[in-house]
């Protein structure tokens, strides 16, 4: 009887534990990271009596959780990839929105500027058309600067998020280390700390969303976590930190460093995956190239506009001045430089400029130039004064560099900040050409002279009067105002006659004694030739070796952002499916299903009731015996 009671009692206890576990599962049905638990029952071996062994009831061997390290690792890896793409696509979306309005975009601003030039060409003497041109030029600069400002803002957002992510990584690392300690203690004393394990898995998953990790399980139940190129973030109960610090070249750029007892080390380039990886990739793959490209467009715009404007003549009869100003090449010295060298860089050829930044390293005897985007070495030539010349840049070195000194050269990223319209007086717009040509009125031949073009706007004698005379023997000579011969030659119809920095062509048949004059166009307030040329150069190829127009470059800038964003969204969506799959695999194993729990509850309840009934039966049996004895 006593055995029967004990056996039934063990059942009662076991099923009570099982019902408690089911209740716990039901209660945690919506708890993130909770792994459902089960009671492991085992039959208690009975004691053999007279060759018969009757079981001694049931015992609870343990409460274990449904989890699979492999599935968890897969989910972490998928989460890392997804978070990276998500952060990337999110930031790409910011740029994409920046360029979304095609009617107010850079392309439209450029076209408005060109149109305003055409309007000046229609009525060159009209101040209101000139004023409109200046305000369109201002609008163009504002447009470029607002793009730049928003790119800078995006850069600042990236910095802020990296700082926040570094803090999160460090605090998660700290949490994992603490959980490791507690788990090791519990495991050492033979317990299975299910809740702690769940909590640690949850922390590991959170960490994986921030940065790619590798997790190695130890015998004592703790895990070691590595990031980057094997930097030990957590070893047992010890955690290191990831800190945000200032880039060694660029003062307003955040990089990440690994801080442990043995010192601080920059690990930015070795971090991948997670939102940190996504932000870093976005910064180097999209943000920097786009900003440099925008700067390159600004440089080219300034360059071609100024060159043509300076070859024209304004309403005062003066040669045109510079139209736009643009910021120079930025040179940033490395933090650890020990030499006294300073570098100054200038742009020499807009057509050769790239959208890349460069690192210049001194190895003790030579400079090495490397592109930051591709990492490729760049060949350079040494120009006058030892200046390094490459990709449309000339970098002059003064002072002496020490081996290991390095500098960053940014050809275009600072261009737009320094951009402004230099012309403020509408009459200073050089819409006219500086020279005019005329046939002498007594000419008897059929020859005509072209309008002339300026080859060298800086020629001091450009606008001095010159007479081109033809003799009867098929020769011409160009005479200045003192009748000194400046140039002469045999006449070829349509051939170039280059004098004093200008070029004209005479065609047709000049008669002996016929003459033409080339003179200053002062007073030519109705002349629009230079305005037309300005409008034309804006549509000509000036970038990338002269193959790409400003317009096309602006267009490409937008479509590059569009393609990259589209790609990022597609990648993100694809990775989302993988991530969802892996997390539902984990969920499928570890998640609580209420119907299942209801069935379990029924099952355990019935068993519990049966065990209770056994106790009642044992009591009845016992009373039967007692009454038999008493009677």
């Amino acid at each position, binding site marked *: 009887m006593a055995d029967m009671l004990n056996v039934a009692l063990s059942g009662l206890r076991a099923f009570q534990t099982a019902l408690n576990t089911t209740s716990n599962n039901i209660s945690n*049905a919506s708890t993130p990271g909770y792994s459902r638990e089960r009671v492991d029952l085992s039959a208690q071996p009975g004691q053999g009596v007279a060759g018969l062994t009757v079981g001694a009831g049931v015992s609870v061997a343990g409460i274990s959780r449904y989890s699979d390290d492999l599935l968890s690792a897969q989910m972490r890896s998928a989460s890392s990839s997804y978070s990276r793409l998500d952060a990337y696509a999110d930031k790409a979306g910011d740029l994409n929105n920046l*360029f979304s309005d*095609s009617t107010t975009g850079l392309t439209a601003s450029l076209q408005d500027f060109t*149109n305003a030039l055409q309007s000046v*060409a229609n009525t060159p003497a009209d101040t209101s058309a000139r004023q409109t041109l200046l305000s369109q030029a201002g609008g163009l600069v504002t447009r470029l600067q607002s793009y730049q400002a928003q790119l800078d803002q995006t850069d600042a957002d990236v910095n802020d998020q990296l700082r926040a992510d570094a803090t999160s990584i460090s605090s998660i690392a700290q949490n994992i280390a603490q959980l490791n300690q507690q788990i090791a203690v519990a495991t050492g004393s033979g317990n299975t700390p299910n809740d702690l394990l769940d909590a640690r898995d949850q922390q590991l998953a959170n960490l994986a969303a921030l940065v790619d990790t590798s997790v190695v399980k130890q015998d004592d139940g703790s895990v070691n976590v590595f990031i980057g190129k094997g930097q030990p973030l957590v070893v047992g109960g010890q955690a290191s930190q990831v800190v945000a610090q200032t880039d060694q070249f660029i003062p307003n750029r955040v990089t990440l460093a690994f801080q442990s007892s043995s010192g601080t080390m920059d690990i930015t380039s070795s971090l991948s995956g997670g939102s940190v990886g996504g932000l870093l990739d976005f910064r180097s793959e999209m943000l920097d190239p786009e900003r440099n490209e925008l700067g390159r467009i600004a440089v080219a715009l300034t360059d071609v506009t100024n060159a043509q404007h300076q070859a024209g003549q304004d309403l005062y009869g003066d040669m045109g001045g510079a139209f736009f100003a643009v910021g120079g090449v930025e040179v940033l010295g490395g933090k650890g430089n020990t030499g006294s060298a300073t570098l100054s860089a200038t742009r020499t050829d807009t057509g050769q400029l790239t959208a890349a930044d460069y690192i210049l390293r001194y190895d003790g005897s030579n400079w090495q130039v490397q592109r930051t985007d591709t990492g490729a070495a760049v060949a350079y030539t040494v120009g006058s004064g030892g200046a390094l010349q490459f990709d449309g840049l000339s970098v002059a070195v003064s002072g002496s560099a020490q081996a290991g000194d390095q500098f960053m050269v940014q050809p275009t990223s600072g261009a737009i900040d320094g951009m402004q319209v230099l012309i403020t007086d509408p009459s200073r717009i050089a819409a006219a050409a500086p020279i005019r040509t005329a046939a002498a009125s007594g000419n008897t031949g059929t020859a005509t002279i072209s309008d002339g073009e300026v080859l060298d706007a800086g020629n001091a004698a450009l606008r001095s009067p010159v007479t081109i005379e033809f003799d009867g023997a098929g020769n011409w000579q160009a005479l200045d105002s003192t009748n000194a011969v400046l140039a002469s030659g045999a006449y070829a119809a349509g051939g170039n006659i280059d004098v004093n920095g200008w070029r004209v062509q005479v065609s047709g048949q000049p008669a002996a004694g016929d003459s033409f004059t080339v003179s200053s166009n002062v007073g030519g307030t109705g002349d629009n030739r230079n305005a037309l040329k300005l409008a034309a150069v804006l549509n000509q190829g000036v970038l990338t070796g002269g193959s790409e127009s400003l317009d096309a470059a602006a267009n490409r800038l937008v479509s590059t952002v569009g393609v990259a964003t589209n790609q990022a969204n597609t990648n993100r969506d694809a990775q989302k499916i993988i991530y969802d799959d892996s997390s539902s695999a984990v*969920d*499928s194993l570890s998640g*609580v299903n209420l119907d299942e729990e*209801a069935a379990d509850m029924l099952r355990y309840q019935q068993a519990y009731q049966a065990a209770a009934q056994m106790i009642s039966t044992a009591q009845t049996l016992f009373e039967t015996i007692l009454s038999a004895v008493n009677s």
Partner: protein
Amino acid sequence: MSSYRISTAGQQSAAIAQMLQQQALIAKTQQQVSSGVRVQTPADDPVAESRILSIQNAQSQLDQYGKNADAATDRLNQGEQALADLATLLQRIQELAEQANSGAMDDTSLNSIATELKSHVSDLQQIANRQDSNGEYLFAGYSTGTQPFAGSGGGMTYVGDQGVRQLQIGASQTVADGIPGQQVFMDIPQGNGTFTVTAGSNSGTGVIGVQQVVDAAQWNAAVAANAAATPPLANQYTIRFTDPDGDGTADSWELLDANGNPVMDNGTPPAAVTGTYTDGGSISFDGIQFTLSGQPAAGDTFQVQPAGTESMFQTLNDLITALGNGNGTPQLQTQLGTALNKALSQLDNGLNNAINLRTEVGARLSSLDTASSLRDDLNAQLTTSLSNTQDVDMAQAIGQLNQQMLGLQAAQAAYTRIGQLSLFDYLR
């Protein structure tokens, strides 16, 4: 494979995620339908976006070309009006000159003609210095801010330049929006455009008549030969009347070059070029010919030279001077006749010039018309392309929207129904 377990929370969150996704799709489609634009951001369709930018650019450019063409049309119309006014004025002056030439005129009537002509001088100046609606001088070349014709009477000079402003009316098409004043008023070809004959200070009554080119090649060769000579010889011939038989009538002429030497022919041996004169007969040499009437005196000269140009102001001024001198003596009568002949020929040349220029302006205006309709065609084409590239296919988008809404409704219905299912409901 064992059946797949699904956690209750996972099932719920999956259902909710699906509904959220449906809603996001609906929001996107709704945005497309309400704005009518399919490509909302570059990422929606990068290739289309690039094309949209190009098309919008091209349209903006076309728009500007249209404005340019309007400006050109405006100025050309004003130029055409000025040329029409000029032609009318020249015709009136011609009438007056012909009236003066009709004979039976005394000094008084000549004077009154001269007086009217004087008023036409200022009319002519006004046309020449006319400004357009922007205050720019129409006939000043590039120097549109400076009055192009300055001075007075025959000494009127052109201070504008020979520049012709071009306006861009197509990607590779420009049109000139004006004509330099030099061409309109100053460079009027003299005589027949090849050579001119002018009378010296003659005492006879020889009046120059019809001048014509018989053999242009011969004349050009002679002109070129003079220029190629060492040293070059100016192209000026003098016909001098002589009286070799001493009968008191100058019935012969000789030809002298610019240096006063007799011109020799190509014979062997070369002989001096000479001729005999009869009233109304012609004098010809080197491929040119002109008639002479009246009786020149011995020693009277007529200069022949390649035609140059003369300004309308000069022509008008000479005419007024000649009329003012009257026809009181036979000599003055001869001079007046010569001057009237010359003036009529110059006025004719000037009128022809004005008509030709007007034709040219008309041609430019018609090319503007052509360009305008080309622009319209291109613009219509671009608008269609833009619409095809950028716009939503409404039928399709609305169909899509309906489908997505149906999907959402289904997801919501399924969620509420399935969410109610629980085994616990049956445990009572």
